[in-house]
């Protein structure tokens, strides 16, 4: 455990050096990245020790704080959740070195980036409630500063503001959660909290609701997700990659850790998480289909993937409630694996999107197009990310969704009514999400990179420098590796969930009999690549042989006289049929300015996309609270006389009250 602490302090030191070198931007960035990479390497040692070796001893330091004390320890669950941090943190800092070349103020930025990484690492190994809360808030604050990096834009400030409020709501719920928990179980240490003191159903459901709100608001689970599509597009891309890939997983980690505290899991918990996950998944992917802004679209797809993870969690919890070990192993296993997979391919997508925004200067997808010719490297890897994100075989997205599918079908084998309903729910929503995800990602990949540029760009985009390319290549390879090498991973995933599900031998057996399917999948994955290579080579030989003519001609346009670039299908028109179908979920408004007069000069049509949940629930709620509070403002009207009456009135009321008892 000491190596872990050393690693974290190395990363934090890097941040401090970056702060000191405020003036020399480039040096600050390089040093901070160097320290992060070194720190993560050092931290990797205990993590692999815990995952594959025999684990590390916890560390307990006498840190005199009236309530909590410094108790760090790493169990299998936290080790597994450290993997995404170790992958994405160094890569995003390296990417940042290239990305922030043209920006000022990257010294402070890197300080907060390193603090965020350290906070996340410490959070995963915190074994004391107070320490957990403190590191949780530090993580929130440092990520707030990262989001508001280029704060000269009004939209970024508004996004930062919404983000801060959302995290604070979650913080309030967590405060209440840990207060009630430590009251029930006595003491703040996680060991005391996980002791299986019997909790009355009322208290355990209250605890679960608080945990769901507290951790759900950080993870972006369905009703509490509105800050995610605001904050991620506002942040610089390597930060949104880190946040989307890793930080929202801390919410999932917290939720699983709270299961260990609550102990006995009721079926209603499982159903609620499953329902939220399914609903969140569908709403997430449908909203991402309707977006104009590329990073907002990726943020909504994070909401969708978190929905899928919650479905896995829900299935696992229902398995615990119905005492069906297979469902438990597969549900939690699918969720955990999807956490890792999502952080890899979402990180890849955000980094590629970052490069696009960096070069073209605009996030508006309707204005982009045909970047494949100018930025072939980024286009190719974005398409790889898109394939992985819509869970298609050769890549890692498919494996974890396969596990959750399998959990659904496996639960149906027991043939009792509730498990079949569960299976039907999981399969339909996952299938629908899968289909829509394919639609959404073909839209982005197709419209942004293929076809022709819809609006002439100011400067010719070109592929970025090696600092931005290297992480992208590494992530793509990681996605492929995870996709193909999944049978090796299933064992660690089965162990990683032990703290939550309790050491139950059958879990290992159940995980065992999924291995042949995973072998089949990786076999097919490899086969796809090999056969594709063969057919492509054959095609090249046949189609491009000397004796045959190879010409380039205009694309068929029905013989129209003067085809223009604007005639191409735009992303909004591409997803228009689906948007109309899911209109109640989306609530997209259209603004039409009709061309008028005999010689009309201009007409415009625009769809305005806003988050339905926010418009229907949060905005009116905020306005109501503000209006109610403003009513009470007359209290302070400035007249001394009436102030004295206040004093007299309080005196009299208190006298009456005391006279009473």
């Amino acid at each position, binding site marked *: 455990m000491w190596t872990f602490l050393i690693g974290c302090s190395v990363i934090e030191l890097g941040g401090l050096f970056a702060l000191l070198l405020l003036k020399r931007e480039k040096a600050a960035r390089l040093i901070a990245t160097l320290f992060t990479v070194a720190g993560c390497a050092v931290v990797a040692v205990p993590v692999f020790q815990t995952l594959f070796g025999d684990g590390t001893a916890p560390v307990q330091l006498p840190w005199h704080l009236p309530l909590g004390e410094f108790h760090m320890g790493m169990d299998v669950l936290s080790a597994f959740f450290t993997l995404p941090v170790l992958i994405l943190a160094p890569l995003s800092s390296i990417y940042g070195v290239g990305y922030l070349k043209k920006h000022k103020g990257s010294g402070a930025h890197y300080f907060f980036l390193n603090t965020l990484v350290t906070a996340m690492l410490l959070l995963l190994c915190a074994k004391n409630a107070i320490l957990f809360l*403190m590191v949780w808030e530090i993580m929130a604050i440092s990520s707030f500063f990262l989001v508001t990096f280029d704060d*000269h834009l009004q939209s970024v400030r508004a996004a930062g503001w919404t983000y801060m409020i959302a995290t604070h*709501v979650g913080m309030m719920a967590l405060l209440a959660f840990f207060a009630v928990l430590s009251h029930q179980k006595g003491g703040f240490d996680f060991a005391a909290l996980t002791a299986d003191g019997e909790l009355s159903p009322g208290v355990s459901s209250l605890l679960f609701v608080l945990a769901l709100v507290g951790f759900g608001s950080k993870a972006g689970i369905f009703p509490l997700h509105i800050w995610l599509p605001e904050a991620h597009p506002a942040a610089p891309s390597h930060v949104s990659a880190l946040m989307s890939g890793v930080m929202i997983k801390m919410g999932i980690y917290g939720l699983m850790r709270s299961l260990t505290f609550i102990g006995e899991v009721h079926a209603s918990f499982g159903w609620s998480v499953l329902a939220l996950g399914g609903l969140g998944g569908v709403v997430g992917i449908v909203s991402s289909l309707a977006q104009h802004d590329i990073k907002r679209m990726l943020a909504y797809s994070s909401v969708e993937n978190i929905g899928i993870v919650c479905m896995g969690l829900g299935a696992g919890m229902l398995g615990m409630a119905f005492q069906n070990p297979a469902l438990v192993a597969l549900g939690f296993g699918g969720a955990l694996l999807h956490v890792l997979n999502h952080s890899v391919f979402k990180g890849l997508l955000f980094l590629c999107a970052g490069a696009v925004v960096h070069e073209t200067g605009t996030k508006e997808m309707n204005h982009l197009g045909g970047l494949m010719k100018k930025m072939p490297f980024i286009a190719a890897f974005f398409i790889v990310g898109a394939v992985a994100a819509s869970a298609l075989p050769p890549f890692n997205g498919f494996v974890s969704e396969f596990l959750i599918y399998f959990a659904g079908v496996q639960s149906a084998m027991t043939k009792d009514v509730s498990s079949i309903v569960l299976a039907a729910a999981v399969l339909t929503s996952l299938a629908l999400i899968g289909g829509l995800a394919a639609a959404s990602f073909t839209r982005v990949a197709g419209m942004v990179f293929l076809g022709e540029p819809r609006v002439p760009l100011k400067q010719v985009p070109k592929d970025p420098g090696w600092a931005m390319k290297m992480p992208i290549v590494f992530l793509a390879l990681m996605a492929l590796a995870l996709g193909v090498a999944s049978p090796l991973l299933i064992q660690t995933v089965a162990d990683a969930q032990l703290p939550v599900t309790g050491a139950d031998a059958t879990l290992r057996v159940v995980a065992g009999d999924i291995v042949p399917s995973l072998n089949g999948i990786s076999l097919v994955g490899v086969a796809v690549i090999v056969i594709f290579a063969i057919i492509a080579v054959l095609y090249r030989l046949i189609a491009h042989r000397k004796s045959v003519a190879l010409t380039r001609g205009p694309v068929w346009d029905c013989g129209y006289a003067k085809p223009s670039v604007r005639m191409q299908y735009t992303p909004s028109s591409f997803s228009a049929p689906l948007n109309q179908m899911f209109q109640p979920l989306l609530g997209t408004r259209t603004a039409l300015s009709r061309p008028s007069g005999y010689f009309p000069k201009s007409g415009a049509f625009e769809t305005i996309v806003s988050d339905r949940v926010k418009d229907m629930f949060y905005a009116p709620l905020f306005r109501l609270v503000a209006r109610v509070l*403003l009513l009470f403002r007359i*209290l302070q009207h400035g007249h001394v006389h009436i102030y004295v009456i206040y004093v007299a009135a309080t005196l009299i009321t208190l006298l009456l009250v005391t006279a009473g*008892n």
Partner: protein
Amino acid sequence: MMLWSLVLVPFVAGLVSYVIVSDRIRRSVWFIAMAFHLFISFFLSFDGGEAGMSLQGGWLTLDALSRIFMPLTSLLFAAATLYAIGAFENEHGRKSDPGKAASAKVRRLSPESVFTGCILVFLASMTTVILSHRLGLQWVAIEATTLASTPLIYYHQGKRSLEAAWKYILLCSVGIAVALLGIFSLALAASGVTSELSVDSLVTHATQLDPRWLKLVFVFILVGYGTKMGLAPLHTWLPDAHSEAPSAVSALLSGALLNCAFIGILRVLQILNAAGMGSFGEHILIFLGLFSMGVAAIFILRQPDYKRLLAYSSVEHMGIVILGTGLASEGMFGSLLHAVNHSFVKSMLFMTAGNILAIYATKRIDGVRALKNRVPLLAVLWFGGFLAITGSPPFGTFISEFSILQEAVNQERYVTVGLYLFFLLLVFVGMAATFSKMTFGATTDTAPPKPLHVWSLVPPVFLGLAALMMGLYIPQQLDTMLRNAAALISGGAL
């Protein structure tokens, strides 16, 4: 003798500095008095005699409670002194440079000597409040603090500061008159039992005091000193007084004066607990605490003036402190810790607000933009203060607010917990809008801001670090002192 010197030295220095003409000498007198006071109070509190050192029949004693607040007050006074001198330099600097003269409303400044005199007398009276064990003397001292601080408030002689000062003195005097009623009824309650109203004798004979009169005493003292402490609905003078006073004074008012009023209430609570009627006032205290937080939340949301915002947050934090006292046992410890944390953070914030005022010359929030780009150090202080005042973890306020929450949950008062968290969230929402609007944003004028005097920057940085330290590591000795004080007040029932 040392204790009396703590009172007399600043008092005499105050009187003397009324008459000194030259700024330099007066400032040095002021500085010496402050240094002396700081050294003595730290020396006495941290390693003075273990038992309460009393003098001449218990007029001034240093018991567990005053052992905390004495060094705190003198530390705040030292910081305020340095800041005030720095602010005067800024002010003089501004007046002299021609460019600024036209735009800034140059107010006619009453001579600095009145300011120095009053502030030193203010310190003397606060020291007497903290140290006095005689409730009569304590009342006199609290009244003296009001009188000493009024001229400080209308130091800038503007219409608004005069109005604020008038409301301050009128409301506080009415409140304190009610407190005097309380003192007299306490004397009546103890008429048969003991002669002089010293805390020790009252505590020893507490059981024989007439309970009905004790209830009356509690109500009068709560209303009287509650007005001084700024509990809603008696708080109406606080936003005006704290926002119109010069920043050094509002830092002292918020940081130190509110604690003195709090000590007045604690002394009476000590007697009540000793008389076994501790649980009697619980509901009233909790209600007042929550009501103050609610009223503060109402006015913090979309508050146009940032100094008034800080004043309302003082009302809110005093509400939290009173809520903690109402919850007794662990809550008492939380409230004392919170009073200390709040003093650090609030005075730091007021000083930073003063610096912002010196640069942007406007108290309106819309007038202040892009603090981050123009004055990075102030932005760090300002936003760090915001995080501290709303109780986010790395700072001390989080620990105290959480222990109060923990106590409320332990007593299964879920309604209180719900309201408590809701108001904290409301205050956070209100403040988040204001602070982020001021710190971030783009600026058009690229003129480098006027350099601030170093003395006006050192104290806030020091206080900010103290607040941070309180959050990360509370030294063992300070923790035991807090626990003894809490035990003292709740009659050993901790």
